[in-house]
């Protein structure tokens, strides 16, 4: 954990006081709905379908046991005793009361937490690889750079009212596990001539217009990180479109201008800023690095996993390699069948906090796949941890498998959603509940979004499902071939899925998935070739044919849509 100094703490406390005043002025009628909306969104407060929703920031997904216990207690006291981990590594409460939100923020501040800029048209939570700091292919500890960017992007006076939200991801390892290609700005650490720097991508994103970002600088030496970002943001703040919310992200500016023209403008702006006072200094990198708590590892040797039935399945899927011998990283699955993906109760949060304390130095990470990671577990403790996690319902051995579904809250909660996503996720999990079959299918990311905003990241699922509204009915469009980036084992780079054809009724979705899987199992050249690899190799046609049928084959029963949605 980065531990706040007195200034970090003061700023968060001052924000609580500011928001308390703003809430009071709104309730007193001194602020209009629209004005308060822009202000409350900066504090993660949405007015949702049935109630407000509060999105609490978990900077780059890193959390301490103490903080998790606080979240458990807040969910119990101010909400309905559970929370939802989002794909942006944050925690959402679905039922807080508007007038109590300042009190919730004050409680969060006591454990160095907040809801600053978790929504609204400003910088959002900077995200990274959930194996940062422990991965064997690490180039830099991305947490340090995330924290530097967290500070720079917090209450930025010039860039607090951007045309649209702005998401930055940093990847500090060789393999990209932070999906830097689908962020407004993606930074991939590179070492060149013994100097650390970043490859800078800009203009990627999901949502309505999914695009892979363009590299605008192959190598940016680290001291220039903030001035270069300032140049990008100034160009975006001044010229990004504000006339149409759907065209306001930086990706549209980059696309409309062309990457070369955009790069020229950034470089011209940067010429004024380069080597100025915002140029980073080694003292600051060292200061931030030192404020992070670090595990004190024992000197241990790697161990063979115990051949215990059940344990080995879990070991294979939920245990990941660690750079220190004798240690492993463990994913606690929040994807048990019957539980909405990413949901966790207050009691579970308390229990997980205790697991983290006893097995992983009191810290954990939220993954963008909506699971929790204990990053520093002694290999000799794995079996004991597995037994405890199983009792808590957190040991489903499905990480990387089809039932590890990423899903937004969807129409059950979200006012923006066109369709429900949680029941679709559950129907698929129920259809594929045979563990042997799941393992037979192998690695498969299945992502579901309830609308085009793509919070469920359906574009980068190997199979992506998008809820669409047609004349007030819920339909589901299916994409295949998307990929979030490399895994800890390597594999294909980030790619966007392609729609296979007209959309389906909810009841047909599990059948469709089964047909897609059928094609894959017939076509793969070995067990090592994953679903997404087969799609990339043979294209989407064979899958389309199986799902929609040749002339003689029957399409799913409600397949009666004439055109693409």
């Amino acid at each position, binding site marked *: 954990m980065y531990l706040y100094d007195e200034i970090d703490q003061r700023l968060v406390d001052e924000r609580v006081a500011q928001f308390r005043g703003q809430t009071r002025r709104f309730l007193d009628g001194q602020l209009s709905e629209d004005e308060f909306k822009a202000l409350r969104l900066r504090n993660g407060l949405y007015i949702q379908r049935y109630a407000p929703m509060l999105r609490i920031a978990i900077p780059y997904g890193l959390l301490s046991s103490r903080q998790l216990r606080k979240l458990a207690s807040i969910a119990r006291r101010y909400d309905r005793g559970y929370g939802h981990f989002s794909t942006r590594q944050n925690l959402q409460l679905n039922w807080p009361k508007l007038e109590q939100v300042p009190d919730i923020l004050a409680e969060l501040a006591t454990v160095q937490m907040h809801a600053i800029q978790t929504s609204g048209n400003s910088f959002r939570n900077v995200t990274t690889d959930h194996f940062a700091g422990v991965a064997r292919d690490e180039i830099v500890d991305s947490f340090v750079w995330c924290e530097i960017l967290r500070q720079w992007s917090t209450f930025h006076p010039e860039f607090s009212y951007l045309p649209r939200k702005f998401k930055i991801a940093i990847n500090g390892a060789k393999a990209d596990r932070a999906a830097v290609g689908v962020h407004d700005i993606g930074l991939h650490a590179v070492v060149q001539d013994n100097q650390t720097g970043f490859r800078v991508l800009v203009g990627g994103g999901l949502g309505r217009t999914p695009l892979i970002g363009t590299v605008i600088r192959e190598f940016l030496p680290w001291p220039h990180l903030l001035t270069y970002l300032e140049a990008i943001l100034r160009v975006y*703040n001044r010229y990004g479109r504000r006339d149409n919310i759907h065209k306001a992200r930086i990706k549209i500016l980059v696309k409309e201008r062309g990457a070369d023209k955009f790069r020229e403008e950034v470089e011209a702006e940067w010429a004024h800023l380069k080597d100025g*006072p915002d140029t980073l200094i080694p*003292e600051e990198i060292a200061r931030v690095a030192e404020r992070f708590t670090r595990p004190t590892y024992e000197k241990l040797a790697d161990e063979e996993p115990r051949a215990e039935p059940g344990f080995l399945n879990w070991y294979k899927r939920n245990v990941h390699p660690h750079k220190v011998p004798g240690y492993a990283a463990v994913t606690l699955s929040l994807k048990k069948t019957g539980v909405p993906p990413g949901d966790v109760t207050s009691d579970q949060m308390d229990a997980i906090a205790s697991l983290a304390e006893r097995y992983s130095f009191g810290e954990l990470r939220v993954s963008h796949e909506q699971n929790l990671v204990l990053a520093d577990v002694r290999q000799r403790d794995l079996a004991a941890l597995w037994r405890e996690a199983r009792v808590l319902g957190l040991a489903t051995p499905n990480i990387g498998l089809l039932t590890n579904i990423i899903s937004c809250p969807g129409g059950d909660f979200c006012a923006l959603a066109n369709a429900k996503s949680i029941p679709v996720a559950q129907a698929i999990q129920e259809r594929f509940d045979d563990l042997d079959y799941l393992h037979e299918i192998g690695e498969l990311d299945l992502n579901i979004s309830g609308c085009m905003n793509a919070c469920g990241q359906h574009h980068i699922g190997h199979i992506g499902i998008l809820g669409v509204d047609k004349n007030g009915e819920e339909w589901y469009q299916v994409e295949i071939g998307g990929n979030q980036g490399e895994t800890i084992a390597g594999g294909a780079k980030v790619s966007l899925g392609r729609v296979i054809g007209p959309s389906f009724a909810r009841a047909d979705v599990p059948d469709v998935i089964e047909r897609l899987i059928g094609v894959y199992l017939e076509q793969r050249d070995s067990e090592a070739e994953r679903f997404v690899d087969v799609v990339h190799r043979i294209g989407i046609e064979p899958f389309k044919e199986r799902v929609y049928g040749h002339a003689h084959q029957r399409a799913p029963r409600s397949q009666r849509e004439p055109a693409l949605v």
Partner: protein
Amino acid sequence: MATLIKGRRVVSESPLSSSDKVIRLEPADDPAAVAGELGRAARVEVNFPKFGDGRGYSLARLLRTRYGYRGELRAVGHITRDLLFFMESCGFDAYELREGEDPHAALAAFEDFSESYQGSVARPVPLFRRRAA
């Protein structure tokens, strides 16, 4: 007549003489286009037609840091107290508050935050350099 805050005080507008020149910039305007006239301006106004339109912050910063403007820089349009802290950081020193905003209560907003992480017009040296000093 909107209420005016200038130099962190509530003031009434002093009338301009006929020779005084006021430059007014809209969000999409380029400050480079008026750079030559800044020396003769009695004040520069930057308009914020909407609460959420943040282009004016960049204009202010450019006027102060790139074009060396030192005179009165006034934010006009949809200005509430909630924006004052950021506006001052970006180089504004005068504000025409929107209708209904209590100017005396608004003065407190300059103290909303006691620090900024970033370098700005108001505090050119970013916090990390001051922390290291």
